[in-house]
């Protein structure tokens, strides 16, 4: 049996094929094989949300998937979603509200917030907090992040 796996997927709209170790996490694949270091590696066991990426249209923990599971998938990271402009309103609101300090959690926060605004465009503050509960921020105390998501919602 093979400890290496051939995978073909689309990352940020471009086709990618690689041979990877079966044990390689998706976020390590994105960072180390593809150089996409915008997805951050925090706790590496699914608690902090820093590695959040979008897989087949929905957010996922990049540390809780092995890259082999992403074969055939459509993966988007903070780099690609910044280029398309999809996150523009959220990013502007994060800057306006000072919703980041060190920035480590920000890519994961933005991807999570984008999914919330897509699925529940009328979300109030309590729902915003619940939806972001899987993403740790150690700088802001969250208040400014909730402000920013609320602000972006109206734009």
């Amino acid at each position, binding site marked *: 049996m093979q400890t290496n796996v051939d995978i073909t997927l689309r990352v940020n709209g471009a086709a990618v094929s690689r041979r990877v170790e079966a044990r390689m996490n998706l976020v390590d694949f994105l960072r180390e094989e593809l150089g996409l270091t915008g997805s951050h590696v925090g706790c590496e066991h699914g608690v902090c949300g820093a590695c959040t990426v979008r897989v087949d249209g929905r957010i996922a923990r990049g540390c809780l*998937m092995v890259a082999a599971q992403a074969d055939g998938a459509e993966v988007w990271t903070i780099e690609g979603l910044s280029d398309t402009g999809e996150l523009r309103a959220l990013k502007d609101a994060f800057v306006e509200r000072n919703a980041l300090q060190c920035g480590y959690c920000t890519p994961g926060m933005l991807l999570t917030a984008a999914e919330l605004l897509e699925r529940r465009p009328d979300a109030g503050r309590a729902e915003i907090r619940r939806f972001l509960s899987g993403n740790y921020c150690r700088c802001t105390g969250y208040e400014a992040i909730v402000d920013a998501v609320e602000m972006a919602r109206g734009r």
Partner: protein
Amino acid sequence: MKPAPFAYVRAETLDDVFRVLDERGDGARVLAGGQSLVATLNMRLSAPEVLVDIGRVAGLAGIEDAGDTLRIGAMTRHVEVETSELAAAHTPLLASAMPHVAHPAIRNRGTFGGSIAFADPAAELPACAVALGARMTIAGRGGSRTVDADSFFRGLYETAVGPGEVLTAVEVPKIAAGWRSGFMELARRHGDYAIIGLAAHVQVDGGRFGGGRLVFFGAGDRPVSATRSAALLEGEAWSDALAARIADELKEELDPFEDLNADAAMRRHLAGVLVGRTLAPLAAG
């Protein structure tokens, strides 16, 4: 890379799965959504020789109306149950539990069957399965068999799924007229594993309780159905005195573990708090 090396097999059919499980025995682990398994791999709490990915096996995902039950395929993602109109209409307990199952990103990948088969004693869905009297379909080379939730959970992370077998579906009875469900848990952070939680499924008639189940999670090595405490409900209307009697009985009946979040006495106390918060609104209707 954090996990120890392992081989990887992408199964296309259940026969592929059975073949690897037969060949590699305990060295093989089934990979469903991976939301618990990959975390344990990263921490090297488990180090299988081979992962069998069942993500592409046809026929394992989806929620079906099967008459008196909903048939939930093992590979159905949590988010599908969370947003299912069938689940909202017929299994309100599952619908109210779902937002507590980890976080959105994890619910997008994690599977209903994976959570049941992993059988974490602090997880929500095993307790819901016991409260509702769900039936698990387990497939092996010789065919399928069905196991009641009561005998499915055998101990800490132990289930009735035997060597060479895979959980393929869960049949969840639809709520019957006159029954009500309530769900509540206490966690440090919304979406984290509960310190303790309650899945309640009870009969209510004219403001009085009939039979029913109070199933706790985070209270033992598996879902704990507090039958003596639930029996105190029968024929009674909700009152503070009843709440106190049940809270006292729970202190006798439950034998919870202790960990960094709470000692056993605190869990016993919180069990009574949960009963009050969950059942009072059910009685009021």
